[in-house]
């Protein structure tokens, strides 16, 4: 699909540019004429939404950094100063703070969509793996960012997460000290986290470029999971998908705005409006919602090192999905068994999130949550390492449609409709 370019420079100026730096040609071929399957549904609009989220976080973040002070004694008050005294500082900060949650909401939908429609399968393995890398970078960036206001949850979250590295045998404590730049989380830690929090989004932007580049070689997967076979199966990206993406983006922004303007602290933890105090540990240290499933895994394992390995393993597992899935069929639409297992998997992730949000000794209807989390963790790994390879071999997929065009337009598609 990344076939010959259809760019045709019209003016002499465009020709002059095209011979020297064919940037307009690149834009034309990737964002205008790019042939895109005509059957992409709402779940395929989240790639564009995520690009928007990244841009919003970078722009608001740069403005916040103009007023924020990365110093353990001043950070908390500098954030309050932004909220109270900087013109529209409250708006910028609430957009940035809620933007992180919206970013993760979108990335989870994007990932589950890829999982459901088999978008990681040959020939799109690298797109998926680069995506996992972006997800990892996003988690790191979000974690560093959450530390910056230097509230109670910032401080204790940083302490808990960095302490995980001390679980590594022999060198663990040295690694933790090296990460802190001190013998505990303190001013040095805050400064380096700020530096990294500013750096990583630009690295994410670069890796997103690779993600899109890799996408534009085979082109989009689609809800049917079958290859594009003829030009009839596709429509040009512009105006078909520019307008569709724009419409759904605005719906997403409406949700975003409801949080920013009417429930700006919905995703926040009240403890983070108290300045960091190394002498007072909050009764429950909870990470942001998007990290809760992994936190639940960590806490459900009694051994610290094993817990860290399981948590890390849960993310590393994602890299291997393209080879763990043995099915020849991509889309779960045509995989009667896998479809159910997928929804159980989504359910397990939600349950893990719920367990992670509750105190460690909590119970639901008399069942200790730690056992619920263990069960869900077991399913998480079993789904990828056992069910995916086995089901792919034994499942009888439903009959695939002959082509995208036939599926969308009916049999009359044999005659060109455009």
């Amino acid at each position, binding site marked *: 699909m990344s076939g010959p370019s259809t760019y045709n420079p019209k003016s002499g100026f465009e020709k002059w540019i095209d011979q020297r730096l064919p940037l307009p040609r690149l834009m034309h071929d990737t964002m205008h004429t790019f042939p895109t399957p005509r059957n992409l549904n709402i779940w395929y609009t989240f790639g564009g939404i995520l690009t928007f989220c990244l841009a919003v976080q970078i722009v608001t973040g740069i403005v916040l950094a103009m007023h924020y002070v990365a110093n353990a004694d001043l950070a908390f008050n500098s954030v309050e100063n932004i909220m109270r005294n900087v013109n529209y500082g409250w708006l910028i900060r*609430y957009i940035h703070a809620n933007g992180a949650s919206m970013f993760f909401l979108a990335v989870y939908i994007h990932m589950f969509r890829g999982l459901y429609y088999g978008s990681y399968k040959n020939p799109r393995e690298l797109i998926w793996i680069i995506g996992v890398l972006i997800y990892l970078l996003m988690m790191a960036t979000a974690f560093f960012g959450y530390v910056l206001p230097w509230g109670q949850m910032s401080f204790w979250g940083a302490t808990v997460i960095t302490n995980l590295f001390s679980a590594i045998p022999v060198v663990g404590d040295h690694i933790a000290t090296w990460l802190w730049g001190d013998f505990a989380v303190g001013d040095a830690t805050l400064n380096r986290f700020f530096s990294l929090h500013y750096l990583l989004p630009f690295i994410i932007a670069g890796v997103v470029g690779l993600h899109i580049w890799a996408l534009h070689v085979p082109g989009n997967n689609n809800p049917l999971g079958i290859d594009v076979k003829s030009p009839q199966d596709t429509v040009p990206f512009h105006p*078909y998908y520019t307008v569709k993406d724009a*419409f759904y983006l605005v719906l997403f922004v409406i949700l975003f705005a409801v949080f920013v303007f009417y429930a700006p*602290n919905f995703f926040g933890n009240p403890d983070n409006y108290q300045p960091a105090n190394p002498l007072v540990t909050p009764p429950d240290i909870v990470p942001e919602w998007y990290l809760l499933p992994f936190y639940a895994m960590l806490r459900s394992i009694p051994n610290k090192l094993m817990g860290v390995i399981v948590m890390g393993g849960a993310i590393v597992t994602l890299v291997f999905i393209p080879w763990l899935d043995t099915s020849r069929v991509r889309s779960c639409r045509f995989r009667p068994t896998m479809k159910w297992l997928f929804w159980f998997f989504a359910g397990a992730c939600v349950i893990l999130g719920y367990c992670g949000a509750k105190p460690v000794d909590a119970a639901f209807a008399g069942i200790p949550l730690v056992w619920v989390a263990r069960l869900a963790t077991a399913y998480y790994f079993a789904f990828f390492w056992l069910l995916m390879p086995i089901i792919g071999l034994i499942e009888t997929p439903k009959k695939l449609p002959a082509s995208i065009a036939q599926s969308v337009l009916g049999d009359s598609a044999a005659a060109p409709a455009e």
Partner: protein
Amino acid sequence: MRHTKTALLGLAIGLIAVLPAAAQEEANTERLPPKAVSFSFEGPFGTYDRGALQRGYQVYKEVCAACHSADHLAFHNLMEEGGPGFTEAEVRALAAQARVPAGPDEQGNTTDEKGQPLMRPATLADYFPKPFANEEAARANNGGALPPDLSMIVKAREGGPEYVYSILTGFHEDPPAGFKVVDGKYYNPYFEGRNISMPPPLVANGVTYSDGTKATIDQEAHDVTTFLTWAAEPKMEDRKRMGFGVLIFLIALAGVLFAAYRKVWKDAH
């Protein structure tokens, strides 16, 4: 394998035996959910009740400020849009009543002849005066407990305004049989652990409202909670107003885009 099973069974029986007793113990010390109470600032169009803000400021100044600081509030905030709505003259007068540490005088002295730190009347630009010079002084005067700063108390507590209101009105209840009120502490079922170091701060007619409102404990608590909510979120009215405009715009934009989307795709499927 059998050992594991036996152990699990034993654990289950043990849990069943222990749970009810533990639950009762917990019910005694676990805090009650905050009282359901309604405020003018709730909902997407809610605004702060100016009268309540002004009365609440009076309660804060005459009662709370004796022990609690509000470090993020400056006098000029009291006359800002979306706030209590005092006039500049009123705020100047309020500020002049407060005394804040002064800088060195022309001779470079920081203390007077008696060795006391130099003080001056506050101005619009000054932040609210602190009740204690430092944390140690605050603890020494409060039986070892540190009165928390109140600027963000409403946002820093689960339950927000309802929690603050419940704490303020949650005294004067009899502790359940068997509950031990720690020496020097007070019973308040809305506080975690139910032993609170703060003595009941509000009494009926503890303040005299100039607008004739009857100063019951409920009224005082309601007013000061409104004031503290504004203190934590002074831009709330601006935020909700702007949000309304933004949403109207976005919904209109979505409508236009939907029409364009339908038109573009009309022949494509």
